[in-house]
């Protein structure tokens, strides 16, 4: 309710601190082992960044990420876990991220056959409630 009134001020914040996207080319984690990857990703997430990773994590890395998030919920203020979606050409992954997908596809489609989006759950919730925010974020890039 209050959000409506504040929407102008809020969208100004977009891209500043609360909502930023971290584009992560696969090369950024290619040489890292699982623990280092998880550390890197969790660090960004706790920094309230949404990560767009070119490529995919291994299934084992995905569960490690979930485990890690579960350990942090309740211990880090306002942290509610993560949202994660691996999107590839063949799988039509239309979960919470389906609104983002369209926009990102426009930017990233090409050689990369898969992208993975990972973000703090609280922030993704905000975005899906107000899809305009994605456009704003992407414009800044």
């Amino acid at each position, binding site marked *: 309710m209050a959000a409506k009134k504040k929407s102008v001020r809020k969208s100004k914040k977009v891209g500043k601190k609360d909502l930023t996207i971290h584009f992560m080319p696969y090369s950024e984690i290619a040489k890292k082992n699982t623990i280092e990857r998880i550390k890197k990703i969790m660090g960004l997430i706790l920094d309230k960044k949404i990560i767009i990773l070119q490529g995919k994590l291994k299934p084992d890395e995905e569960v490690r990420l979930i485990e890690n998030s*579960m350990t942090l*919920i309740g211990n880090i203020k306002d942290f*509610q876990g993560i949202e994660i979606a691996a999107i590839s050409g063949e799988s*039509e*992954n239309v979960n919470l991220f389906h609104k983002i997908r369209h926009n990102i596809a426009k930017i990233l489609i090409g050689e990369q056959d898969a992208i993975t989006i990972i973000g703090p759950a*609280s922030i993704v919730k905000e975005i899906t409630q107000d899809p305009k925010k994605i456009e704003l974020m992407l414009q800044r890039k």
Partner: protein
Amino acid sequence: MKETLINLNSKGDYKMIKIIKNFARRLFSGFFKKRGEIKLGFYGSPNAGKTSLANRICQDWLGEDLGSVSRMPHETRKIQIKEDVILEKDGKKIEFKLIDTPGIATKIDFEDFMKFGLKRKEAQTRAKEATQGIIESIKWLDDMDAVIILIDSTLNPYSQVNITIIGNLVARKIPVLIVANKIDLKKSNVKKVQGAFPEYDVVGISAKNGDNIEEFYEGLFKLVKKI
């Protein structure tokens, strides 16, 4: 800081014990050919109907329940086990150990539980237990002989949790049967679940009223052959 260290160590020990356990298991299973219990796991998102199906099986063959069912997600927050569940088909007996797991999620917001009428403190406790339950579910993935994945067929099946769980089971070479649950509901779409997981057997059932449960048992016996 200290706590982290201890945790890491105990995790390492846990892993070591597991390796020895697995080795011993492999060694002995060669000696005693008699096939023991099949550890059958029930995995999936919260509220998919894992406990409802496990209860139905237990009711069918033992006449008792395994665990409690609720509209509120994360009802199961600790692994629930029922041993000596013997199913019979065409005169052949198969012994199962049913392992019902806490629903796996990537996020938990305690305020969601308050919408179900829990007080703040209760909701926070439930959330805490739910996070620990999820970690436990993940730990147990290694220990399963076969797994039933429960998917609520009224929801979008392309959820990352389903994909992550199945990916991990495939990597561990653990056979999987996908159950598209809640076919009694209007919004149910079993075809969509099949479309999302074309390489897997998918059985549509209602764990609640038992619709199509015979086909589920067929699928279960087929699954056992893949172990």
